[in-house]
């Protein structure tokens, strides 16, 4: 019953791979894109399925890059499928990896996540030949005004009432300004659709993008926000779309909330501008116009939606010194480097030498595991 990281990783990857709609679209694109003898890069390779597909399509070499435990499992998979000579597994962030040759094809996982554009832009610049073919080629978010289920109101209302007699209202403004993952079976679309984000991955230059659309109400009802669905072009004119009525089982959608429920009638409209900096910060500015002549403006962003912790924001230019724990860490590194006994012995030595920073054996163990290069990323 220990919460098991690999158990969780496998469940997640398994559910993506079980989505035949998505995987078959990707394999179709891989088959059509890869030419015999190609070198490919698989960004976010997971347990290696798409890399294997690239080899099956004729790739001479595939560099499979993945920053999670999944890649350790891929080692056996690659061996069992006889692709050891073709697939090179590389653990880490693609921005921190250099390849011995430039690739003809990029196969990339792309979602609404941190650094979605910079990792693509970096790969295009450093890892690919100038005329490399990209899978996917283009990425869009399509939005519409939507009625969410009761769950959405609860997300925000939870914070406006007292619990155990305490005031939780400071969290309410945070709760309004999040793009919530939604289950689209539980929401209904009220308006026309509009494109809220459009990346042409071969030509995109800036990490900041801003797109506007007018969404016009087609059926009266309560509107909680703008629902958004992904649409991805894997091969010229071959799109995989989660925009209703189409569906991709393993894709979710988002609701950019208005923070309140608005009653809208047919013909009312909302002008929506969605902007993002590299998937890290999302901002949605909305002007809602109703027949009664009312206009309401909403300007939410995930950046202003959470208290800013000055202590965590260490800029490139701030001058910094070492903490007491840092001195103990340096000593731990030295001991591990010279292989002075097993980790447990190092942990115990640290408690002797740095009793203030490492007050007990548990602290020593934690520190030893934090400084070990094979473990470090587990402690993020």
């Amino acid at each position: 019953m220990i919460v098991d990281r690999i158990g969780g990783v496998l469940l997640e990857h398994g559910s993506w791979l079980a989505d035949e709609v998505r995987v078959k679209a990707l394999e179709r694109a891989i088959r059509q894109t890869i030419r015999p003898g190609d070198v490919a890069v698989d960004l976010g390779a997971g347990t290696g399925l798409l890399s294997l597909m690239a080899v099956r399509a004729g790739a001479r070499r595939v560099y499979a890059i993945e920053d999670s435990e999944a890649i350790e499992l891929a080692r056996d998979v690659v061996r069992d499928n006889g692709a050891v000579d073709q697939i090179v597994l590389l653990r880490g962030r693609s921005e921190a990896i250099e390849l011995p040759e430039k690739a003809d094809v990029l196969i990339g996982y792309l979602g609404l996540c941190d650094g979605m554009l910079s990792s693509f832009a970096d790969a295009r610049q450093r890892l690919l030949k100038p005329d490399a073919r990209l899978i996917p080629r283009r990425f869009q978010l399509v939005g519409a005004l939507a009625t969410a289920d009761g769950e959405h109101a609860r997300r925000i209302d939870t914070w406006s009432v007292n619990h155990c007699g305490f005031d939780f209202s400071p969290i309410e403004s945070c709760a309004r300004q999040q793009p919530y993952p939604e289950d689209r079976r539980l929401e209904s679309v009220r308006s026309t659709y509009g494109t809220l984000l459009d990346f042409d991955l071969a030509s995109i230059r800036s990490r900041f993008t801003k797109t506007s659309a007018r969404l016009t109400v087609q059926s009266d009802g309560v509107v909680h926000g703008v629902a958004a669905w992904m649409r991805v072009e894997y091969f010229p004119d071959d799109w995989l779309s989660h925009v209703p009525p189409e569906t991709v089982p393993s894709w979710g959608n988002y609701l950019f909330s208005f923070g309140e429920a608005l009653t809208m009638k047919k013909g009312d409209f909302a002008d929506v501008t969605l902007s993002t900096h590299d998937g890290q910060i999302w901002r949605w500015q909305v002007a809602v116009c109703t027949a009664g002549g009312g206009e309401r403006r909403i300007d939410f962003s995930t950046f202003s939606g959470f208290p800013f912790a000055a202590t965590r924001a260490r800029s490139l230019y701030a001058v910094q010194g070492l903490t007491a724990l840092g001195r103990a860490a340096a000593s731990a590194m030295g001991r591990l480097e010279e292989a002075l006994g097993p980790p447990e012995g190092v942990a115990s030595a640290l408690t002797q030498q740095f009793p203030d920073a490492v007050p007990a054996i548990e602290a020593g163990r934690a520190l030893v595991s934090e400084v070990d290069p094979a473990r470090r990323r587990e402690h993020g």
Partner: protein
Amino acid sequence: MYNHAALIESQASLLANRERVAAFERAVKGAVKPGDVVVDLGAGMGLLSLLACRAGARKVFAIEPGKVGELAKRLFAVNGVAGKVELIPTASWYVTLPEAADVVMGDLFRGGLRAMGVRQLIDARGRMLKAGGVLLPSRLRMMAAPVHAPREHEARIGVWADLYGFDFSSVQKVAAGRAGPAKFAPGDLAARPEILAEIDAAGGSGPEWRGRACFEFARPAAVHGLAFWLQTELAPGEEISDEPVHPAASWGQQFVPFREAITVNASETVEVEVAIDTVRDALNWTVIARSSDEHESSRQVYAASRDDGAEMIPESRRSAFLRASRSVLESLEASPQTARELTDALIASHGSLFPTRRAAEDLVADLLHRFAEAAPLGRR
């Protein structure tokens, strides 16, 4: 980076579970006496700290290394207890408190049993609690039951059987015996739940868990694995449980799939033995199916450990990384510097380890995040 929907959601579901909140409210009220010093381990947004203040605590140390602590700070301010509660943004084992506590409490097991939570609790009991002080929770019980769960088994095991013509059986082997989150209904249980292991946290128990249970079957069943959940005694007579009863009000259970479902006949038994190594986060367990004549019909042995996903780094490279990391800390110790200066120096001294500047920047940022503090203004 700035998307906190999941964090806020998890806090909301914490409040939504009213029975659980009420149990904590009663337990804290019973444990904390006017004038007490209290430690809140893994304080989250600070609900238990607020409750301790209401019960009359003179001082509360709220230990929360996560970002959610920023929300807690706001709640402490708006509820008028900012003067009493001190938020400590560090992992509890690195913390030495200025005074011993009358009560050490923590809501450490939301969403499953974490070995780390057990270690935190036992470590704090030893170092932070006065003799005769109160530990909350006082007792932890790992409950288990065999489950009929074809869908969950398919999602974890079956999915890897044949993936688009490739052999993923090695992943399937790793997936068997690994815990992952699931939500079961009472009808999914194939036999009555039993206590598998128990920790008397308030008493003398160390962090190791070991136990066995024997399940009897009233009728034949196909068993796909085991469901585990935690039953927590907050204080004598005050218990909370994640058993499959009220799916909406529970954090759910953990599911450990067998390699293959086993068929058990009525009057047969299934015996489970478990040993948890909390230091290595390793879970070893054995399942023995036995018929009424004591004949063993099947035996399955599983081992899962945190080490399974560790990055495979050759020893020479690992030492080189340790040396490079230590050089960063030592140069910070010699004189305060900026991240940029440290990165330049790191590339100059250990350039061959970092294929891109970004790779060196990542290491420096990680080390600064863990082990640096801003130097006083005007120091250079």
